[in-house]
């Protein structure tokens, strides 16, 4: 399969990339790892006139924590980089649990975190984790930079809030006020398949008490779902079995799954409930162990 013909540019700086985007007037696309875009171009779901390959722009492949705890992921940081990251393993339990479940190992060596969030596939894993963590995307355009919360950034299936002359340069996760806990669970028919259901939970704890919670749902709606009521129900109390059950029920209610070859809507809703409860129960039992 061949994609339709396109012009190829490989800028050496972000400014140059933005200039190509401006020149492309809406018909140019940014190419990073290409693990979503290239298959879509081969199927001719996407036919950009110009591809702007940002892989030769220096200093975009990073992930680091600022001194205040803000976590930043550069536009060229791959899933594999994150999977192997000791910073992630130590400080970002939700992201660390997500990284090894994205696509398959070969795709993870090329695909990028920021690209995956921009692709805004309702079955993309990272958007759920970012929503749970209240993360943002930093967009840069001719007029400078702006920060867009991922809950506003993902505007629909395969749609994001970037203007046609803006490039997503970085993902940002705000610092935690408490101790981070959480996880990501995904049901897939085989490795590399799209998620039948994915659940991301990000908590901040102070002692036994939850002081912040976020829950993102993958694959159970026309776009990533922010299960805000379920998350809010956890804040201010300990992770008792009643609290866990209530949050799991509320998350299942927030899901909008459709019956398809991967499972019935009822089944998927039940998996959401189970996964939320499973992650929260594990956090709670780790608390008991630590105490």
């Amino acid at each position: 399969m061949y994609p339709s013909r396109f012009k190829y540019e490989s800028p050496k700086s972000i400014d140059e990339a933005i200039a190509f985007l401006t020149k492309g007037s809406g018909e140019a696309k940014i190419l990073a790892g290409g693990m979503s875009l290239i298959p879509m171009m081969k199927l001719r779901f996407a036919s950009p006139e110009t591809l702007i390959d940002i892989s030769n722009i220096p200093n975009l492949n990073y992930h680091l924590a600022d001194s205040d705890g803000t976590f930043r992921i550069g536009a060229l940081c791959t899933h594999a980089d994150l999977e192997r990251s000791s910073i992630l393993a130590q400080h970002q339990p939700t992201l660390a649990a997500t990284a090894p479940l994205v696509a398959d190992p070969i795709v993870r060596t090329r695909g990028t975190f920021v690209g995956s969030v921009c692709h805004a596939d309702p079955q993309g894993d990272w958007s759920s984790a970012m929503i749970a963590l209240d993360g943002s995307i930093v967009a840069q355009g001719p007029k400078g930079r702006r920060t867009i919360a991922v809950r506003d950034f993902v505007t629909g299936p395969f749609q994001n809030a970037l203007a046609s002359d803006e490039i997503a340069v970085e993902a940002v996760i705000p610092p935690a006020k408490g101790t981070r806990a959480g996880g990501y669970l995904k049901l897939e028919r085989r490795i590399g398949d799209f998620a039948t259901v994915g659940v991301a939970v990000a908590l901040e704890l102070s002692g036994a008490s939850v002081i912040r919670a976020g829950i993102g749902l993958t694959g159970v709606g026309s776009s990533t779902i922010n299960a805000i009521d379920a998350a809010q129900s956890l804040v201010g109390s300990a992770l008792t079995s009643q609290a866990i059950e209530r949050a799991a029920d509320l998350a299942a209610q927030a899901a909008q799954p459709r019956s398809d070859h991967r499972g019935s809507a009822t089944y998927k809703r039940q998996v959401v409930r189970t996964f939320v409860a499973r992650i929260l129960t594990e956090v709670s039992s780790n608390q008991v162990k630590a105490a």
Partner: protein
Amino acid sequence: MTSLYEEVRGDNSEEVPTRVVTVRVNGVSVSAKVEPRLLLAHFIRQGLRLTGTHVGCDSSNCGACTVLLDGQPVKSCSMFAVQADGHEVMTVEGLSSASELHPIQEGFKDEHGLQCGYCTPGMMLTAKALLDENLNPTEDEIRWALSGNLCRCTGYQNIVKAVLWAAEKMRAQAGK
């Protein structure tokens, strides 16, 4: 310089964009003028006539087209040749020397790690990337590393055995 045009002849309605790429393939530097939409898999197979790289699903699912780009496994059906410009590619043809099989190839032979053989080049290259990083992988780590490569003959047991065999031989060679 080889000129690579696919589906272009007879189509003069628009100017065809091209780009010169230089890629080091199995240790040899190759330059070619290509259309940006030329996939790396086709550059390797049709341009360089290295047909050991197989195209299976053509949609980034099966891993048959896996090659190593700067030592890391990539699906060459889901990458453009222009993206490999300035990089190093290893295909299955680069595994063996003129006289000797690579231990991974020997392992696949000895442990019957292939049936139809279609997935084998991709399997072996992914295994190479794993063994380059970890000469003593567990069976679990091998299965995990190969989880992006599908075998429709479902010969996974022997594929895993073949990689374990190769790891042992490579450890012995390295004196570890």
